[in-house]
């Protein structure tokens, strides 16, 4: 599966660069959106079939929220640490980290702020986070643990990474992943502008 993922991205990149006309760009978002909805629909069926799992989450209670909280803090700190190795400020590093793998949103927010180079960097670093995450998920699930897989996925745990999470972990973790992904996703448009404002 990891190889197929790699291949899909490479083939997409090559066809985007050589064959696909630029005019497709707009409809691409719509196509991806439809694909995502179909995917989520089937992921939903999978989750629905796991009866009794909802009770597990209820019994876990608010503690489940520690997973997205740790993910957000870890990602922002990770971005700030990265800023010491590359040519960006500590605030920019934190902002890039706070994208949590949601590359379209973080890139859009930053370009709206007039930070074009940073926007491209946000796009790439968050794409990489998602792709690297998907590739190493089977290994991380086996060697480190299931919640580490969820945390790695960041905001993508609720959509694009969810099928891989459900394939490499278990149904219970998949539910936590979705909860974590929803909270991470909601946090990106709030935290990213705040970091840019505070450090900018």
């Amino acid at each position, binding site marked *: 599966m990891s190889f197929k993922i790699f291949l899909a991205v490479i083939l997409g990149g090559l*066809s985007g660069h050589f064959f696909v006309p630029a005019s497709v760009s707009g409809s691409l978002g719509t196509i991806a959106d439809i694909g995502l909805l179909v995917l989520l629909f089937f992921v939903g069926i999978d989750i629905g079939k796991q009866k009794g799992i909802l009770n597990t989450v209820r019994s876990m209670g608010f503690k489940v929220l520690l997973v997205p909280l740790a993910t957000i803090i870890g990602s922002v700190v990770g971005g700030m640490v990265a800023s010491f190795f590359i040519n960006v400020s500590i605030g920019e590093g934190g902002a890039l980290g706070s994208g949590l793998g949601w590359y379209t949103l973080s890139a859009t927010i930053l370009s709206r702020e007039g930070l074009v180079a940073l926007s491209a960097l946000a796009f790439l670093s968050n794409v990489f986070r998602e792709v690297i995450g998907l590739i190493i998920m089977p290994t991380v699930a086996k060697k480190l643990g299931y919640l580490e897989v969820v945390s790695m996925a960041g905001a993508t745990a609720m959509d694009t990474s969810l099928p891989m999470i459900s394939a490499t972990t278990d149904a219970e973790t998949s539910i*936590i992943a979705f909860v974590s992904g929803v909270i991470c996703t909601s946090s990106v448009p709030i935290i990213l502008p705040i970091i840019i404002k505070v450090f900018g």
Partner: protein
Amino acid sequence: MGILADLVKYLGILFIGALIGYNDLVKGKLADNLGTIQDVCLLFLLFTMGISIGLNKEVVDNLLGLGLKALVISVCTIVFSIIAVRLVKRFVQTKGDTNEF
């Protein structure tokens, strides 16, 4: 508002799917191939993501320099997310996850 609408849309479709799954409305061949359908959707999504990257000239032209920086950032965010979740893991231990810190 757009983000909120997306969130509601994603949650809505997932909820509809969950209701269908919970009430066992999916049967036969379709039920056996749910995993395959998910894989195909995922690969398709990644393919379209690749096209978006390939279409963006500015990104393609500076791919190497931007790519290296992006790699450092993504690796750091992944590593620190894992470290952070390990710190709270003792409070959220799942049954299937036998790897304890």
